[in-house]
């Protein structure tokens, strides 16, 4: 690396570090349910060697019945040991591996574009785009699994490509790929497919009889062994919530199919109905449509993911200029016949495949691996637009970048925590703090809120002894329609399923504190305490029988 490039590289890393670490404990404004659950399970493993369900060092955390992949939880343990059970410890692995992906991107681009005179510049631009990517920053500041999986996937690809020149890297590649499948469910589809594409693209450069390749395969299989063995006992360990989020589980398509066949009429030929309304066509179109929605400008630039918490208010997952640079980048990559062009296109396609099979689309989380082609192509596009000695174009682009980046920073750091605090379950920490401060005054504390899994916030912020919890928690392991299992009670805390304030208010128990979602109550009700969102909206009220 040239000295000037070195300075630029470290500036990019510094920018990435600042945007990822400042106010990490406060923005996003609260730990999301999945983050806090992993944090407490990491704490539980540290203290007892078992997770919240009492399973010894699991290869998949049962969690809320969604069977979370384990890697992120295990990576939290050293931070919780060093800094305690808090928001920063939970999110630090994401920050560090998020930075790691930026470093890996630099080396990956250098490797993929080896022989191209401007490879280093391209690598710097790609790293810069990743450093300022809203999508990447959002994931790097939360413990939502995918940033961890991206790091290991990208490492796997980088070392594979390096392995085609020096076969000792295959071992590392196998290790990274194997770890990636422990990081996120989607990687159990993405990693093998991407590996297959790599083998096909680099088949002429791979020396298949090399001992390192055989060792690599052996290492990969050995690392996968715990997962495969667990699969024998319980397939959920491998598939997680795949069944309940799959397009085939959703009844919408089946109902439409039934409606269309009915409209064909009794007298219609069954052959015609079968030809036009069969499962392959109905689900096939549905899957292709769900795939293509991830390339829709409204999703990419304007609205982003519809499902909280993977949203940034009033913006998409990429910047508007990215959209045009991506198109230019793809065209340039093919015109100039860059050897890595097909790999990047396949990377993009494969990254979207797992999400296309789910009925919750577009999904920024499930398609997160696409962020790499989505920043390399704009880098190619921008490099093409810049010519040596030009001043005006770089100046215009700098202004556009600065405005776009400033808008993102405003939306993420100022608007999100105040106006959209509910997206991140804000208020649960405050709720846990309040009920734990008054719990001695009551025999029971009843949460009349089905959403947000309040029990895990109580465990986390109360630092409840995992041993005590594992032995006293009551749960029936009955999954709801989305596959989630709920805790019914632990200690003096009760979480009755499907009970609302309207059901309970005429049958209040003595010495019991009720935590009620504000939306379920009437305005005139008197109460002991309240929790309000930063924008002033009421979240919870607390009451007792004599109020």
């Amino acid at each position, binding site marked *: 690396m040239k000295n000037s490039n070195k300075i630029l590289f470290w500036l990019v890393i510094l920018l990435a570090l600042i945007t990822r670490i400042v106010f990490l404990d406060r923005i996003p404004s609260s730990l999301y349910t999945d983050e806090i659950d992993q944090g407490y399970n990491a704490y539980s493993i540290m203290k007892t060697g078992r997770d919240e369900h009492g399973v010894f060092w699991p290869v998949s955390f049962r969690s809320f019945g969604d069977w979370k992949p384990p890697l992120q939880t295990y990576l939290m343990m050293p931070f919780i040991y060093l800094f305690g059970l808090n928001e920063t410890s939970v999110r630090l692995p994401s920050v560090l591996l998020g930075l790691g992906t930026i470093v890996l991107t630099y080396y990956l681009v250098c490797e993929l574009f080896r022989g191209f005179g401007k490879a280093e510049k391209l690598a710097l631009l790609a790293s810069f785009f990743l450093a300022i990517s809203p999508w990447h920053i959002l994931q790097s500041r939360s413990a939502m699994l995918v940033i961890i999986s991206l790091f290991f996937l990208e490492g796997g690809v980088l070392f594979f490509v390096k392995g085609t020149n020096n076969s000792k890297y295959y071992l590392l590649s196998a290790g990274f790929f194997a770890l990636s499948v422990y990081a996120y469910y989607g990687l159990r589809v993405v990693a093998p497919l991407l590996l297959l594409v790599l083998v096909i693209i680099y088949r002429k450069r791979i020396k298949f009889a090399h001992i390192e390749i055989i060792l690599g395969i052996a290492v990969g299989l050995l690392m996968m062994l715990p997962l495969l063995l667990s699969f024998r006992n319980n397939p959920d360990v491998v598939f997680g919530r795949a069944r309940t989020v799959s397009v085939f589980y959703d009844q919408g398509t089946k109902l439409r199919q039934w409606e269309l066949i009915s*409209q064909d009429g009794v007298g219609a030929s069954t052959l015609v109905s079968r030809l036009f309304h069969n499962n392959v066509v109905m689900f096939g*179109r549905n899957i292709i*449509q769900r795939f*293509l*929605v991830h390339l829709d400008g*409204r999703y990419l630039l304007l609205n982003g993911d519809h499902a909280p918490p993977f949203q940034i208010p009033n913006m998409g997952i990429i910047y508007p200029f990215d959209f045009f640079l991506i198109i230019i980048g793809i065209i340039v990559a093919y015109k100039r016949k860059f050897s890595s062009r097909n790999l990047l296109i396949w990377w993009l396609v494969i990254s979207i495949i797992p999400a296309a099979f789910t009925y919750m689309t577009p999904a920024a989380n499930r398609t997160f691996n696409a962020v790499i082609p989505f920043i390399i192509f704009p880098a190619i596009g921008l490099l093409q637009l810049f010519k040596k000695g030009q001043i005006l174009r770089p100046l215009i682009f700098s202004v556009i970048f600065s405005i776009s980046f400033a808008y993102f920073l405003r939306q993420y750091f100022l608007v999100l925590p105040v106006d959209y605090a509910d997206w991140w379950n804000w208020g649960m920490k405050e709720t846990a703090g309040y009920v734990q401060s008054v719990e001695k005054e009551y025999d029971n504390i009843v949460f009349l809120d089905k959403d947000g899994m309040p029990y895990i916030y109580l465990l986390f912020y109360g630092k409840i002894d995992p041993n005590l919890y594992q032995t006293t928690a009551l749960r029936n392991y009955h999954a709801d329609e989305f596959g989630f299992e709920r805790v019914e009670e632990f200690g003096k805390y009760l979480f009755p399923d499907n009970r609302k304030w309207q059901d309970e208010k005429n049958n209040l128990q003595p010495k019991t504190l009720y935590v009620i979602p504000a939306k379920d109550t009437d305005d005139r009700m008197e109460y002991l305490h309240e929790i309000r969102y930063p924008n002033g909206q009421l979240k919870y009220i607390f009451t007792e029988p004599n109020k």
Partner: protein
Amino acid sequence: MHSIALLLVMVYASVSRLWFLNQIPPLLDTASYYPRLVSAIFGIATVAVIYFLSKLIYKNKRLALLTAWVFAVSPWSVEQGRVISQPTVALFCLLLISFLFLTVKNKIISRGLLIITPLVLYLTYPQFWLFRFTQPLPKIADFLNNLFYLISPEFLFFKNTTFWWGGVRESGIFYLFFLPFLLLGIYKFYKVTALGPAIYFLIILLLSAASPYFPESREFYLAYPLLCLIVAIGINYWWSVKSKISRLIFVFLFLFIIYDIASFFHYYTVHYPQQIQISRGQINEKF
């Protein structure tokens, strides 16, 4: 050979637009039949004009034929050719003026053609929002949403916004298996054509997205032949690649397109009339 192919395309265009025109979509008012017939005739004539105009501009008979074919079979043009449709008439006139402009040598006539174009557009398409500017323009966020909707896979291949003007809900403005050709056509577009058509497309796209009546407006239809041209460029290029695998994939894609066309007509003749019958109470305009 090209003449026979063109004849077949014209026959297809005629049959697909005139067959049971008085029944599909169901006529809610018998007075609508003749205006509908006008659309059908202009729709058929547009196919011919597209062929001759493309041939004139690109000096490539196969590309011209393919463009005419894509336009003739595509869902949106069939739908617009079977309902009362001002954009269908306007599109024909615009294409005809373009053809005359390029063929006529006399400068005065050429200039005259340019001058009368807005008038022709006004007379044939008074519903164009620029001519009935009574509502405020959309906000920037809505404008951008409209813009990206018009070039979204959802609108292009899966759902039709213009339901009340002849749209089948399950169909976009193109068949799904046109997608690979559309992508290839975009990639090859600049090699085949000058910047002019791209600028025209962009203007129509921006105007369509800026319509205060969006999505209840059809200005984007005026850019439809250009999208058909892009698909045709993709088909033409793909076929010119002389590799066995490429040809095999091409044949498979074409089989799927034939299936798509059959499926479209099934929806159009069986399900669409039922949807109209169910929604009769909500239909306020003649179609």
